[in-house]
């Protein structure tokens, strides 16, 4: 085990895959010599060569297409979209091409591409450096959708994503790159000393089917992913309510057994995400839980999400779900 921040953990996962699978290639904007604007690929070009880690021209649709072509011809590309907000020029290639090729070719061609992208708010990035567009990918059959939250699961999940023979959209909560975030922008710790900053060296993977039970309790189930996992942890502590906190980790396919077991146990559920409410993945959670757990529910399922508005710049703390809003939702579930 080595203490790492999330950037170092992601770098470690990519480094390990580059070292152990000659078909892995890494590209994106600024990822080569510079090592990426968030430094996730720092040092990898020097170590593995410019034919394996290189800068792509500034055309997300172009290098997504390139990744597709490499993928169907035997490589295992890991591409970086610099901010999730910039993924949309590549949307056609991801949704119509990567996601469909296995099925549409009768299984003759497959596309094992990993699309890494920093997502989410809390860095004063305004509406084009803060979005969390996971639901725009969970609605596409053929894609796996992953959202890490800590250095440890960042490494484990990214390793699995790269090894996966299906295309994976891998969201990295950029707010948590250098430390967990508990909802207080004036008090931002680093990962130093955090138990989930202890990351195994070498090959380390976490199944793309499992949620992580972060906290265990009896009276409410809080479901979150990305940065919101840490904000929820704070909210649960503030609420004084005994809660399960489930970090979904993989959204497609999500961990049915973990969610159902917990929801049936507590009978009360709060789903939290940064993305807008309407058609957010929280809606899928709520619908699925009522389908599977209706007779165990003791209270209406709560959703705490970003607003159905563009993500703001200076007012982002009123946009993102705060510990206060989540605490109130947890308490409401206890009042019924």
């Amino acid at each position, binding site marked *: 085990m080595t203490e790492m921040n999330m950037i170092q953990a992601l770098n470690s996962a990519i480094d390990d895959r580059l070292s152990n699978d000659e078909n892995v290639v890494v590209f994106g904007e600024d990822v080569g010599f510079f090592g990426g604007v968030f430094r996730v690929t720092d040092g990898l070009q020097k170590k593995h060569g410019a034919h394996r880690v290189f800068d792509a021209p500034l055309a997300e649709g172009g290098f997504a297409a390139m990744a597709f*072509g490499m993928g169907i011809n035997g490589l295992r590309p890991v591409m970086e979209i610099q901010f999730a907000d910039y993924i949309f020029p590549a949307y056609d290639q991801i949704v119509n091409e990567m996601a469909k090729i*296995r099925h549409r070719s009768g299984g003759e061609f497959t596309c094992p591409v990993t699309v890494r992208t920093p997502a989410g708010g809390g860095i004063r990035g305004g509406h084009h450096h803060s979005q969390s567009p996971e639901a725009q990918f969970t609605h596409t059959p053929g894609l796996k959708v992953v959202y890490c939250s800590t250095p440890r699961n960042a490494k484990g999940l990214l390793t699995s994503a790269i090894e996966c023979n299906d295309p994976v959209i891998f969201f990295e909560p950029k707010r948590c790159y250098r430390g967990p975030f508990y909802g207080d922008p004036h008090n931002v710790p680093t990962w130093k000393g955090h138990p989930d900053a202890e990351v195994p060296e070498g090959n380390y993977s976490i199944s793309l089917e499992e949620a992580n039970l972060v906290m265990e309790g009896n009276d409410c189930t809080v479901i979150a992913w990305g940065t919101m996992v840490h904000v929820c942890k704070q909210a649960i502590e503030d609420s004084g309510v005994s809660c399960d906190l489930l970090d979904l980790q993989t959204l497609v396919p999500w961990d049915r057994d973990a969610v159902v077991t917990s929801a049936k146990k507590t009978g009360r559920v709060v789903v939290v995400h940064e993305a807008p409410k309407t058609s957010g993945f929280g809606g899928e959670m709520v619908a699925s839980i009522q389908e599977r757990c209706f007779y165990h529910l003791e209270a209406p399922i709560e959703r705490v999400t970003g607003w159905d508005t563009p993500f703001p710049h200076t007012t982002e703390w009123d946009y993102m779900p705060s510990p206060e809003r989540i605490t109130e939702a947890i308490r409401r579930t206890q009042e019924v």
Partner: protein
Amino acid sequence: MVGERELETATPFSVGKPPARPDQEPGFAAWPWSPADLTRPDPTTCKAEDTDAHAHGLLRVLDDDDLAKGEWDPSLDDETLLEGLGWMMRLRIFDERMMKMQRTGKLSFYMRSFGEECIAIAQTMALETQDWIFPSYRQPGAQFVRGRSMISMINHCIGNIEDNVKGRQMPVHYTWKEGRFISISSPVGTQFSQAVGVAMASAYKGLDEATITWIGDGASAEGDYHYAINFASTFKPPVILCVVNNQWAISTHANLATGGRNFAARGLAYDIPCLRVDGNDFLALYSATKWARERISAGLGPTHMEIYTYRAGAHSSSDDPSVYRNEDEFKCWPGGDPIERLKNHCIKKGIWSENKHNKLAELLDDEVMTAYKEAVKFGDLANGPYPPASTIFTEVYEEVPWHIQEQREELGK
């Protein structure tokens, strides 16, 4: 192109128009280009700037009398010439029969290569068997050259139990990995930028493999075209990028698709050698593609081509071109008909005759009908058997995840 771009209006902004609408007399200016125009630069040393004349002229081998002339004459042996002619005839007859099947409800949809049979056939013949074919929907002929059985192709078009893509794609969206023929996608142009990636993977693995891909004049407006040419310029992978300028994208004439008059020369600014090739000239296409392949073998990377031709048929079985263009326009195309031209060439060489041609056409028609009858033994469109409903749920992922398994159980099949 010849002459000025024609406009519907120049104000308040330019809106192009085709040379003729249905009620107008069709016609094209005579071509100023002849086979003697262009030299054949050494492919192993040629730079983009050496192809300026090739990008702006028209590479021809067959002259107006269908005789092979000039430096680009590939001097093919008789067997190869007749093989090419045979594949083109086979494709046209196949297309005609399949379109009739569509009209009588035996296929849900169809697209012919009418007038463009030469392109994929000549080019695939000029490539190596290990090279990747990344087609749009009007290059099915490559599969004939690579040896795919007609029955297998018809099985796909019907979508019966033997369809290798299991009834998941519309007809003519072929996939055939064995022949290195990559899956066709309906969103036009996506293959162009993907082909660059396929070629980069070949280069990465150190293999002597080329990738060829095609895009239409209409689809060359898509971002994918521009991604492809820039990425090919940046990474210099072993790819042959072909813009099939067949004048029409459904009803959108090239004059409405771009303000330019030349597609080939776009590559010059990207430092890619460019050729503008007569798309109805089997020998010119064969020769141009061999040249591009020689560049790839020499490690020099991409070539960009405009293949200048005319879409003689409708876009697809769902299209009615009589609404937007004069139906006789294709008969005026200065490039003529690709099959007639190679046929005449072979006759003039003394290796072919009208009689042999007609006999072969009959044999091919029989072959198509026999293949169709064999194919429907595996199911026809009206009655099946179709691939089982379970194929809806398989191969979405490598393994069926729980939520899709639940949905399959809900369907109960």
